[in-house]
């Protein structure tokens, strides 16, 4: 039954138009230029602040400390912090691609089969993203992570911090240089395996690849849950090395998935506007919109679980995290902290509530952009207070770099999308996806 349907679908391949390429290169260049101007701007601002600081020191003590400017975070740390933010952001969005493939196999879901190549293409950013990310943390680690400072775990050093020293079994080079990077490599190997099987399925057909993919999905999801936790603790939570929260990894996962689904929706809409994937209709788009909506709520649930419980118990070692984002650090993060709730929750929640909203491409682009900006801001609030304390600000650097990373991500994903037919030709659930109709 049902085999005769496949004849209706013709294989199609995406090829990036020169217009798309030029626009992407243009945006990439714009992002790069803004970033470079931003670096100079940041340098200037840092010198200005340092000069002010030394002036203050000299009037108080009469001695100008030569290295006064080197004690606090500098423009270099600001650059690294921005790189960490955008590197991590794009990396976890790419992971959401692999995650989405695995979840659909494991849940035996058919509706998204027509979108599978898009999630495959998103996962192909993983190797590029990993290299960039590792360059950032390996080269910039000393600026980013206070726990990597000299002698911080050495009892005889003046730098000694007993709390950080008690974390030496996890915050160490073995995890930092070997275990955590290897986890991403393993994720990518799984991703390669999924995509290779999918390509072979296109040629050979049968349900064998499907069944093997289901088995691999189970293994991937299991490893991903633990691996993703370790990654988010090692590279992001340790930015605030004294602080800890058990929900932190899930919080990062929530960002990864809601943004992953948002990016996937936007890429789908873009490809449809280019004339590809014509069988993807309002029903699919509606379902993608539901995912954006549902995981916006999920993120809020996780946000609230962390905020409410820490606020309620009011224990100094935990509350400091929110103090530093509200009244602390001269209050510079306060506006962004509350704006975050609007960008990541109230606006998308209200904007995506109705059925029509989830089926309107322009509206989805708009709300999707708000979600993506919102979670950039979310990550900003997770990273900057730890690295920059009260010295953070939003300049051209903060604006240019996400533009650069975004264009790079989209370019690599679309290039990867070119390499295979736009939908899995012989996936056993392809027909279900083509005939996806939920009813009124």
């Amino acid at each position: 039954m049902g085999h005769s349907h496949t004849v209706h679908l013709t294989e199609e391949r995406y090829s990036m138009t020169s217009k798309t390429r030029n626009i992407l290169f243009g945006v990439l260049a714009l992002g790069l230029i803004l970033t470079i101007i931003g670096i100079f701007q940041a340098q200037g601002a840092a010198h200005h602040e340092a000069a002010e600081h030394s002036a203050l020191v000299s009037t108080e003590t009469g001695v100008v400390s030569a290295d006064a400017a080197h004690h606090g975070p500098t423009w270099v740390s600001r650059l690294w912090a921005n790189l960490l933010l955008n590197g991590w952001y794009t990396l976890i969005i790419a992971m959401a691609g692999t995650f989405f493939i695995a979840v659909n196999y494991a849940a035996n879901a058919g509706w998204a089969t027509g979108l599978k190549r898009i999630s495959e293409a998103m996962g192909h950013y993983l190797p590029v993203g990993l290299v960039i990310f590792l360059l950032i943390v390996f080269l910039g680690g000393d600026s980013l992570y206070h726990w990597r400072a000299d002698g911080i775990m050495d009892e005889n050093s003046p730098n000694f911090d007993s709390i950080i020293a008690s974390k030496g079994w996890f915050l160490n080079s073995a995890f930092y240089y070997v275990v955590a990077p290897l986890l991403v490599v393993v994720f990518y190997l799984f991703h390669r395996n999924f995509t290779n099987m999918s390509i072979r399925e296109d040629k050979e057909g049968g349900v064998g690849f499907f069944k093997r993919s289901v088995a691999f999905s189970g293994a991937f999801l299991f490893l991903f849950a633990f691996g993703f936790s370790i990654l988010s603790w090692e590279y992001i939570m340790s930015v605030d090395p004294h602080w800890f929260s058990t929900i932190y990894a899930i919080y990062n996962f929530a960002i990864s998935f809601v943004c992953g689904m948002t990016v996937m929706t936007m890429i789908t809409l873009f490809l449809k506007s280019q004339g590809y994937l014509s069988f993807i209709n309002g029903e699919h788009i509606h379902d993608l919109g539901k995912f954006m909506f549902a995981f916006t709520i999920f993120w809020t649930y996780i946000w609230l679980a962390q905020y409410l419980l820490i606020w309620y118990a009011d224990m100094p070692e935990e509350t400091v995290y929110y103090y530093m984002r509200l009244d602390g650090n001269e209050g510079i993060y306060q506006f962004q902290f509350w704006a975050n709730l609007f960008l990541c929750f109230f606006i998308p929640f209200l904007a995506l509530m109705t059925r029509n909203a989830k089926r309107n491409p322009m509206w989805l682009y708009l709300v999707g952009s708000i979600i993506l900006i919102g979670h950039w801001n979310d990550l900003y609030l997770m990273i900057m207070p730890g690295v920059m304390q009260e010295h953070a600000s939003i300049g051209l650097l903060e604006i240019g770099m996400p533009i650069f990373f975004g264009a790079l991500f989209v370019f690599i994903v679309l290039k990867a999308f070119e390499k295979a037919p736009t939908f899995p030709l012989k996936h056993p659930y392809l027909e279900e996806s083509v005939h996806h109709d939920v009813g009124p």
Partner: protein
Amino acid sequence: MSYESPIREPLVTGGRTASDVTAEICRPLENKPSKLWWLGFTLSIVCLTILVYTLVRSSFEGLGLWGINKTVGWAWDITNFVFWVGIGHAGTLISAILLLFRQKWRMSINRSAEAMTIFAVFCAAIFPLFHMGRVWIGPVWALPLPNALGSLWVNFNSPLLWDVFAISTYLSVSLLFWYLGMVPDLATIRDRAATPIRKFVYRFLSMGWDGSTRTWARYEVVSLILAGISTPLVLSVHTIVSMDFATSVIPGWHTTIFPPYFVAGAIFSGFGMVLTLLIIARKVMGYENYITIGHLDAMCRVILLTGSMVGLAYITEFFIAWYSGVQYERYAFLNRMAGPYWWAYWSMMTCNVISPQLFWVKKWRRNPNFIFVMSIIVNIGMWFERFVIIVTSLHRDYLPSSWVMYSPTLIEIGIFVGTFGLFFTCFFLFAKFLPVINMAEVKSILPGKAHSHEAEEVKQPDLVTQ
């Protein structure tokens, strides 16, 4: 209309037709109960009697009959409260969240799972009510009544009060959802009724259902609205239960992962109980064609998923306790693993984390006897989880001079056993007098239906994409 891939398992097997569905599902209602039913029902009534006896004594003689003391102020009661509330999560999850995820396999199990939810919430409510000591006034204390009415204004800052709101809302919405879904089936029973009493009772219960298109349309709208309301409710109930602990400053309780982790655990235990009940029910009542091996397989996957999520949460908690460097946190977890209650901790780990991993093997996910044993292990494990969290964190508090041990008295054990009596008494009555499977919904997923849609699909011209 949707298309279904040929590699999907049919949801109803044995070539059942719509009239078979009606006949088979109405059979237990329209015939005298079997000996097995009487045996089970009698046993449940005996346990229920124990519940009445122990509760009456606890009320008249006071909570001195319980094993609680000044360090461990709540133990057995709150453990059992969380245990039963957790079990009460599967029903609404199946009917609301799986509805949103368009999982059609839920249709033959939602009715009994929802019934189970409601009975489990009854059982759960007993524990906090009787822990208030004076049960005749306790429920009044829990309501936000002004001081002028002789009660003290409730503490809105307390998650225990949030519990009152969350659970009572959950119970009322679940009851509504369950009952509403049953109305079309009650009308079917009414129409088939042979005796005047049966006709009268089911006519009353089916609220004048006439099966017209307009009635069905309204029914569907209300179902969707209730599903929308229930979804956040399911999550909120155990979230708030977790906050009973997590808002405190007790090591091992105050941890931010508690809300999602408790919800995962609740779904885990709920599915454990659904499996325990349905594996018996499908066998005894002959419903193997409706609650198929495929259904059991799907539920085992949910068990595997939620069990692994719970496992991830255990490991995360332990990791962060160590990472935090806070000595109280570290001690709380060491004490769980190697303290005097080590056996409870390791029972929990074995039952909740290690044993569900056996469900990776497909053969075992499709073996009802194996699943039955596993479902009981899951229930035991989840009971121990609550016991471990509650008792190990309390019994060694900040002041070593108040360190004590806790063990339940016979009365407390009696109350717990008694709640099983209440639960099963309700369930046996449900199985006798109400349709255990949603006939109307199951008829919509009979395999024949899919074929006819498929035939329509082939003719659609818009499939050609290029």
